[in-house]
């Protein structure tokens, strides 16, 4: 792929001034790419971009403070970086962003479902992209899947496919998939009666194993070792296994991300039991966008819920 080579040249060009560049390389299976930390030319050769470039490389930034690092970013990854910068959690000067036009990434749950009855995802030996399709090299012959059928949900409502804040942008910019996020997924959820919604979450949370993969995959969950979920001092949460404890944790997680979550979906992707965690976070995002006109990862100011203004311009509390 021409664009892949162009990105590699951009990486190679930037690498001398950086401690490493984070992108994607081959993963444990043909359908899974993994984060790739490139430190020399040999590493750069292993770089792959495209439909499998799922992981959000912004995740690693807070732990790499102090070093200048490069990142190859999709539009959504760049929003995470933007948010970290807006919150002073990383320094923009210490980051070199290489952007490229993203046309969607795979959702492994959907791919697994699509392959149901034909082969296991792990049996796929290779993948190539052909325009709007992906062609899998499977044991029983080639399998052709439409990208839109196996792409992540977030890709269908992508407003920012290009990393606008990139230092170097490779390729032609892609058109946004939608102009505005109508939060139709939330509306569908909210059509359920309150009882049904409660029952829904209780059922979903009953599967939670409190592995904290959602938290660990979140590029904006920067407390890490000091997360309230595991802290004893202060002892906010019990380690109990009840549904309410799990829901409590997830609601805290969502609340802590209110107005900060860029909707990259890494929490939901990392969840080993498939809880629709992004729904909670998107409910907050919709609220914050509506109330404060703040779009996480795009706006450069401190998120509204993490600061204090005497008067919010968008909230007409008092008309003086």
């Amino acid at each position, binding site marked *: 792929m021409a664009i892949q080579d162009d990105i590699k040249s951009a990486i190679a060009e930037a690498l001398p001034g950086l401690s490493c560049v984070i992108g994607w390389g081959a993963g444990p299976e043909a359908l899974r790419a993994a984060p790739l930390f490139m430190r020399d030319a040999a590493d750069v050769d292993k770089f792959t971009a495209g439909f499998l470039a799922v992981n959000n490389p912004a995740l690693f930034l807070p732990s790499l403070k102090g070093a200048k690092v490069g990142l190859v970013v999709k539009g959504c990854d760049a929003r995470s970086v933007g948010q970290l910068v807006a919150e002073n959690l990383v320094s923009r000067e210490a980051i070199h962003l290489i952007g490229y036009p993203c046309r969607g990434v795979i959702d492994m749950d959907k791919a697994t479902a699509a392959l149901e009855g034909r082969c296991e995802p792990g049996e796929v030996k290779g993948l190539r992209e052909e325009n709007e399709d992906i062609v899998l090299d499977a044991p029983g012959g080639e399998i052709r899947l439409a990208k839109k059928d196996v792409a992540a949900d977030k890709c269908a409502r992508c407003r920012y496919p290009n990393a606008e804040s990139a230092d170097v942008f490779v390729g032609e910019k892609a058109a946004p998939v939608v102009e505005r996020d109508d939060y139709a997924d939330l509306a569908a959820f909210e059509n359920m009666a309150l009882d049904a919604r409660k029952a829904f979450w209780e059922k979903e949370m009953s599967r939670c194993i409190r592995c904290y993969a959602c938290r660990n995959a979140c590029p904006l969950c*920067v407390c890490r070792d*000091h997360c309230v979920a595991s802290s004893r001092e*202060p*002892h906010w949460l019990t380690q109990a296994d009840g549904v309410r404890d799990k829901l409590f944790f997830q609601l805290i997680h969502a609340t802590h991300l209110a107005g900060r979550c860029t909707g990259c979906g890494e929490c939901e992707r990392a969840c080993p039991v498939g809880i629709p965690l992004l729904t909670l976070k998107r409910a907050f995002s919709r609220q914050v966008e509506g109330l404060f006109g703040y779009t996480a990862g795009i706006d450069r100011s401190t998120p509204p819920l*993490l*600061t*204090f203004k005497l*008067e919010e311009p968008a909230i007409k509390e*008092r008309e*003086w």
Partner: protein
Amino acid sequence: MRIGVFICHCGSNIAGTVDCAAVASKARAYPDVAYSTDIMYACAEPGQDAIIAAIKEHLLTGVVVASCTPRMHEPTFRKTVERAGLNRYMFEMANIREHVSWIGKDIEANTNKAAELVRMAVSKLRLNRELKPKSFPVTKRLLVVGGGVAGIQAALDAADAGLEVIMVEKQPTIGGKMAKLDKTFPTVDCSSCILGPRMVDVAQHPNITLYAYSEVDSISGYVGNFDVKIRKKASYVDWSKCTGCGLCTEKCPSKKSYDRFNEGVGPTTAIIIPFPQAIPKKASIEREYCRQFNTGKCGVCAKVCPTGAIDYGMQDEFIDAKVGGIVAATGYDLMDWTVYQEYGGGRYPDVVTSLQYERMLSASGPTGGHIKRPSDGEEPKDVVFIQCVGSRDVSVGRPYCSGFCCMYTAKQAILTKDHIPDSRSYVFYMDIRSPGKGYDEFTRRVQEEYQARYIRGRVSMVYPKGKKLIVRGADTLMGAQVEIEADLVVLAVGAEAAEGAPHLAEKLRISYDSYGFFMEGHPKLRPVETNTAGVFLAGACQGLKDIPSSVAQGSAAAAKALALLSRDMLDSDPQIASVNLNRCVGCRKCIEVCPFKAIQEIDLRGQPKAEVIETVCQGCGLCNATCPQGAIQLSHFTDNQLLAEVEALCRF
């Protein structure tokens, strides 16, 4: 820990609907409770003595009193436990009066709720730590915001007592609303004659620095050490050179400017000295009316000024000042009465406000003290006064009584008769409110000696007929409709907090009600204090009041400020924030939200971290709530303490 629990009866205030003995008995089962009893009046001397005796007898290390709001008696009981040798922070209060006995009648439910609140207090107390205050020096300087009669009184009293005072006044002159009045009730003495000397005193007092035509731009800091930024608005006249000779105001060719001081009664010039007794008596240019600014061609004032004081290029100037206390005395403004379409909504020139009428009555006003109809300059014979225009009227969102209108309307009716002996005055009123010394006699005099006709009822409409205005209203005592052919209609327009008062309140971090009036600390017992330490109130900014009350409050505010600033050192509250450096990621959000600039960034082995400046922190808890990492804890209100309370209440 050995905790003592004292359940107060507060006479029958609590015991009437709470079984206090049962609460005390339940409390005995709570963890660490070594002693529990009910007590008739915990705050009374026998009650306090009983607490001290119990501490000694049962070797208590912490005390919970379940009684009223901590707003009143927390300081009392802290002193009590201190007298018994405990640290004052080893004390918790459960409010079982305002939060329980006064709001419910079900004794069983109340008793349970009271027991729960006591359990919460016990749970928190178990995690309390001894805290000790630090002390910090006080800046012995007072800021008075507003140069009306209340502010003037506060400034003079404080300055006479030896305090340095900075007065900031928005307008080019001090004097406020009182300076606009012709005479004052109930003595009908000349307003500027009695106010004038006070204004001169302000200007000449060695301890007072006056910044007229200035506003408070920002305030930071805390009691004892406020940092104030004052914006001196550009007057385009160098006041150090201006002698107040008034030549410029005579020669200014732009003669159709709105006359702010004279409430728009007649036009004025673009460069003005508000009135002859203005303090400071300096000229200033109203930019929006000035030809030099609007067309770039004029410069007349600059040519005629004998001292060369005109400076068209002048910019706003900022002055930084450090003060220990602040008196807000921002006064009031009239409400926008044009919402009353039935009185013409501002369309009829001969319907004027009471303040406009004052300027017509005043010898230094634009009519030279002759009452003239604005439409044709003729002397009116029939003058109708309509009271409660924007007072006591829920339909325009002004349910409150402005308090002084009954009195000044009576005064204006008297003055009308003095000015035009063959005139007739009519006053439409709702009730006559005159509860002051000599006030009721005054309103009686205007009716009996000055033959003003008082008509109890509202006016339904005012409309023009030829040169006259027809005032149609109800006489509810006669049960009849009345129509009066008036030459002039004077509206006793209700007052509201001064324009911009809420903005100042936000800067001062004091609360204000829905009409913009500043909230006092306690409606009866702390009338001039606010809930922000070091900020005091004087005059109508706290609630509408007449001149005697405003002056009294000015003195009261000065007394409070003096009591505060007579001390060399103040104790800082030890209930402050602290940063756990292990957790801090240096995101600076706490620094951004801190309203006291009490958090600074430090460098810890190359990593940015936050640090609380202990004497500056006021323990408001904003940083604590903001810190995403939970790296900031507020002592006496740590997460663990709050959690303990929540868990005591929500047990599952």
